[in-house]
């Protein structure tokens, strides 16, 4: 009898409840692509539907005036209108380009800084703790310096973005390098990877997961710095998401503000999808996604 119970435990997931089921879930037969997609999608849709429902319920409850807290039925038409304006697309274009270039620069700077500090004890003692300190410096503190150095150019915005994101990337690199398993480091040295090659072939790939995590955090910093930096100066009446956000707030256009927040969330989701894909690729490579492990 007892043996029957255990047989069920190890062979039929149906009978297993709670967290045990979670542990075992995913050990099932490989589901089809469509089912996988559906499993990825329905919780998201449910979450969004739920969020909208709660929002609508709060609005209907009359807790706040619609003026202060507009409901979905006011925001979605505005969002629809918004995405059809030329300002939206040109603003999106400007912001996306700045985010792209700024983040790329920040990544390059952060990687170089991180690797330099990680590989050199003196640099590390000198600058290591400075990285976090720089990270905590709010963007507005950099504005005067940005203007001083780069005038009112796009570079001034980049400067703020890079100073916002690069420390985060560098910290990711440092963390990754610090946690490279000593055995792999020694194995690398032993098979003839010295100096730069050790970093290129052993330490960098071993630190890659932490670096990607750092990049993800860096992206968030870059984006937030950009939103602030775009207020620094509006060049030649070039509109941008950051400027639009600020003006929507200044003009108390709450519907538009929420529309822009939704836009930012969607862009954030896209960014996350990109990082998520990179992360999953690494985990698949390393055998961390393997359902048999």
């Amino acid at each position, binding site marked *: 009898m007892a043996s029957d119970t255990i047989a069920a435990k190890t062979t039929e997931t149906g009978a297993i409840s709670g967290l045990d089921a979670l542990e075992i879930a995913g050990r099932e037969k490989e589901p089809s692509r469509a089912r996988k997609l559906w499993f990825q999608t329905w919780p998201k849709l449910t979450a969004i539907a739920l969020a909208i429902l709660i929002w609508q319920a709060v609005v209907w409850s009359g807790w706040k005036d619609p003026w*202060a807290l507009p409901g979905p039925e006011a925001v979605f038409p505005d969002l629809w209108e918004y995405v059809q304006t030329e*300002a939206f697309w040109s603003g999106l274009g400007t912001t996306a380009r700045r985010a792209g270039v700024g983040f790329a620069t920040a990544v390059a700077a952060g990687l170089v800084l991180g690797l330099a500090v990680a590989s050199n004890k003196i640099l590390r003692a000198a600058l290591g703790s400075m990285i976090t300190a720089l990270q905590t410096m709010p963007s507005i503190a950099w504005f005067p310096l940005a203007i001083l150095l780069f*005038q*009112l150019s796009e570079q001034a915005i980049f400067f703020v973005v890079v100073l916002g994101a690069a420390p985060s990337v560098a910290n990711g690199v440092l963390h990754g390098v610090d946690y490279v398993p000593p055995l792999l480091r020694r194995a690398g040295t032993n098979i003839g990877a010295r100096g730069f090659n050790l970093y290129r072939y052993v330490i960098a790939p071993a630190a890659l997961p932490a670096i990607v995590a750092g990049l993800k955090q860096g992206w968030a910093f870059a984006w937030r710095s950009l939103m602030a930096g775009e207020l620094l100066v*509006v060049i030649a009446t070039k*509109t941008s998401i950051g*400027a639009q956000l600020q003006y929507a707030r200044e003009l*108390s256009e709450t519907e538009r503000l929420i529309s822009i927040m939704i836009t930012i969330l969607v862009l954030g989701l896209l960014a996350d999808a990109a990082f998520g894909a990179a992360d999953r690729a690494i985990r698949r490579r390393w055998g961390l996604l393997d359902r048999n492990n």
Partner: protein
Amino acid sequence: GSAGGAGDETGGPVTLRLGYFPNITHASAVVGVEKNIFKDKLGTNVTLETKTFNAGPAAIEALFSDAIDATYIGPNPTVNAHSKSKGEAVRVISGSASGGVALVVKPDINSAADLKGKKIATPQLGNTQDVAFRYWLKEQGLTATKEGGGDVSVVPQENAQTVETFHSGAIQGAWVPEPFVSRLVNDGGKVLIDERDLWPDNKFVITNLIVSTKFLKAHPDVVKALVAGQVASNDYLHENEAESQQAISDHIGKITGKPLDLDLIAQAWKTIEFTNDPIPSSLKTGLDHAVEVGLTEPVDLNGLYDLSYLNEALKSAGEPEVAQP
């Protein structure tokens, strides 16, 4: 120097970098840019580059850093720029607008005495409106400390936020400039004090035009043309109200993605006077008030104003000249 345009002595091309805020109190600048009034006055030899700012500090930082040559700006940053550079960095070369500031309160507040125990917002500790409000309170026999204590609690906060907090009842009033006055009024507020009523001739500076001393020295003729543009722009504002308002709405729409409500502009328009007079006396008085309420040290305003170009422009436009302080 009107249609002939300006340039440096050698006649080579010059770039004038002009800053302003996409804002109703900067209507002279917005319309002047939108309607190419500056361009016409500056002529072909001068390239006009415009930069819009969101707030005064960035504009002053830009001016200090040689990132712009001239900017429309409020009196408060003007004084800061003057005092921080020990009178060297900037010159006021023209006025732009006056008025457009009021104390808006909840309808149940009818007098200064009713303000006791209330929270009233100002845009920023020590800025023009903040000083005006504190001085006014003092005159009314009410106290208000820098930190927000006293009979009336003065809450410095961003204007955008003031609209939210006024609506939600977190504050009971605000001493703010346009278009926030109109916006609070539309939200059920009532104008308790129109700041114009507190000033001689109902005039006090809200926006003026400043230029960096370096640029003024290097390109006096460009500055002259710029001032001429300012004068022409104000003329345009007076003569074509509807078109001007439309231009402002469009211009703001270009940057923010949503044109500013025309009714709101029209409403605010009535409280603002577009004048080329920078009204130096109001700036001086405001500063005295600030000293009196203990917010600043005295500042020597000597040499801040250089209105010779303005008077020249006014003369050639056939308008009355203004007094140099």
